[in-house]
């Protein structure tokens, strides 16, 4: 999973066009208390097959960044500036352009799967709708249904035909997140924005969802923008990490470098916030140097006691 990561890696190292190219992106929120700059001049890029993680505490602006890129913030309350090029098209300069990429090249995996599907519509109807919008399959009912079943199989949902008839309240959070990933995959997207996709799930389910994302990335070369507050998640799946605080990046770089040699106090605090790294340490592919952050964690942790 760290195939794209190398010490000398920079954004400009890629020859091909980036899937996502964010430059000096700003989000100003209009609130009763005045204008708040929730995202302050952030720049980053994601290429095919890469996972870039924005990590930070609640309120650091990481989710606002993701929602701003998708233009899903309320139009009258959020002022966006800078440039966000999705597959070469600047959706800040051309707001209408976002409609051409949503549900096509770009898909969102939401934070809380339990509230992310309409409760009065069946899984099948919401999945079929996404399939029809993607325009890939024919609009023939049988073809759409077959594709829906295939998508549910790809996210490892057992007995997909039965699940199609079910409603969101009949499935568990982990299953719903798989359904949402299947819906996201309906359009064969090139870029997934995953906004804390595991934070609302049980720890035992989290690993399965992350494994699924990695598997899909490997198969299809999807670029992923991962938003998380969990360094365990970040180190497992990221190529690059941007540490966000108060709306701007305080530290950016290779995942190993950030974990092993955090440059700022804030990053060290985030590292210290991971209580025990547990079995994910043994995930093959992680660097053998895991003892270093462990030691660092214990030290910092002790200092806070």
């Amino acid at each position, binding site marked *: 999973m760290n195939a794209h990561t190398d010490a000398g890696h920079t954004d400009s190292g890629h020859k091909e066009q980036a899937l996502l190219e964010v430059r000096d992106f700003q989000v100003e929120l209009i609130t009763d208390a005045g204008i708040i700059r929730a995202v302050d001049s952030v720049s980053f890029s994601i290429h095919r097959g890469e996972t870039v993680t924005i990590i930070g505490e609640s309120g650091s602006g990481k989710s606002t960044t993701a929602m701003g890129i998708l233009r899903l913030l309320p139009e009258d309350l959020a002022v966006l500036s800078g440039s966000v090029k999705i597959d070469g098209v600047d959706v800040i300069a051309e707001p209408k352009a976002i409609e051409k990429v949503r549900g096509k090249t770009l898909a969102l995996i939401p934070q809380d799967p339990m509230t*992310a599907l*309409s409760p009065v519509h069946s899984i099948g109807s919401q999945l079929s709708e996404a399939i029809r919008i993607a325009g890939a399959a024919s609009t023939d009912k049988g073809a759409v249904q077959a594709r829906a079943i295939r998508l549910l199989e790809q996210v490892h949902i057992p007995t997909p035909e039965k699940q199609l008839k079910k409603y969101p309240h009949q499935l*568990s959070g982990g299953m719903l997140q798989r359904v949402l990933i299947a819906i996201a995959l309906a359009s064969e997207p090139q870029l997934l924005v995953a906004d804390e996709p595991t934070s609302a799930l049980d720890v035992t389910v989290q690993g399965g969802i992350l494994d699924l994302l990695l598997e899909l990335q490997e198969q299809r070369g999807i670029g992923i923008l991962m938003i998380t507050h969990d360094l365990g998640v970040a180190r497992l799946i990221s190529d690059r990490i941007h540490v966000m605080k108060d709306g701007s990046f305080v530290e950016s770089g290779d995942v190993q470098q950030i974990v092993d040699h955090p440059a700022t106090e804030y990053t060290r605090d985030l590292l210290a916030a991971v209580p025990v790294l547990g079995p994910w340490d043994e995930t093959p592919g992680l660097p053998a140097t895991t003892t270093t952050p462990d030691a660092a964690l214990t030290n910092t942790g002790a200092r806070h006691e």
Partner: protein
Amino acid sequence: MTNYILKRLGQGLLTVFLTVSTVFILIRLAPGDPAVSYAGPLATTEQLAKVREQFGLDRPVLEQYWIFLQQLFTGNLGTSYSFQAPALQVVAERMPYTLTLATASILLTAVVAIPLGVWMSRRPDTKSEFGVNVLTIAGQSMPDFWTGIMLLTGFAVLIPIFPASGFATWGGLVLPTVTIAILQIALISRMVRREMTTNFAAPYLTVARSRGIRNSILTWRYAMGNSAIPVFTALGTRFAAMLNGVVVVEVVFAWPGVGSLIVRALETRDYPLIQATVLLTALLAVGVQLVIDLAYPLLDPRVRLGKAAAA
């Protein structure tokens, strides 16, 4: 499901029985004498006593109630003093008029209030939304007798398009319907807007938007689909309430329905007629409420399939 329906039916019948019994006692406790209304102000004491005997009003209240119950189970609600006809028949003849007015009013309300509420929810904080908002507050605040008289003056007197009273032609339905609907539209449209606004802000809608779903589908299929339950309930409850007689409006427009009948029955202390009216309207209201409850599962899969959350 059958158990549920039987249980609800039982509850409904109990409600109707208690309502009628309460009314039976209360009208006898209230001041006023049916005999005086019937025999006229110049009647002698002997004449009044005779009338009371004829109506059975000289007996103790409990005995009257016992006779009432016995007759109730044979479907006999007594003879109306003022109409000198079976009370139930008098009410049943008026019922279709009230049903027509209530149905027309609720349909007009739904057809106007739902799109209006959706329209308001889609344009928050605009001048046009503000204007409509003010109008709905006005509609909510105007008493219906005043609205009715204004409409009468406007569209039956100054510009005589519609008949001023009665139900001789279908045109006669227009003004009373509009009078009732103005208040209901004001209330329901604001409710629709509130529900829609809540659903527009719900996470599932943002996620649906991220899938490239068109605004019209987000509005009608998603937000409206999720707002339907409370809106449908409100419409049903208002309809049930209208069946009890839209009293003021029926009186203003001399509408030959149950509402104007109950006013006359109360004025003349026509006990059997009051009881029959209450019984019939209570039965209808309970029936409508039951239909609403039974329709829930159709609108909401969470009710239909149980709330049992998977682990």
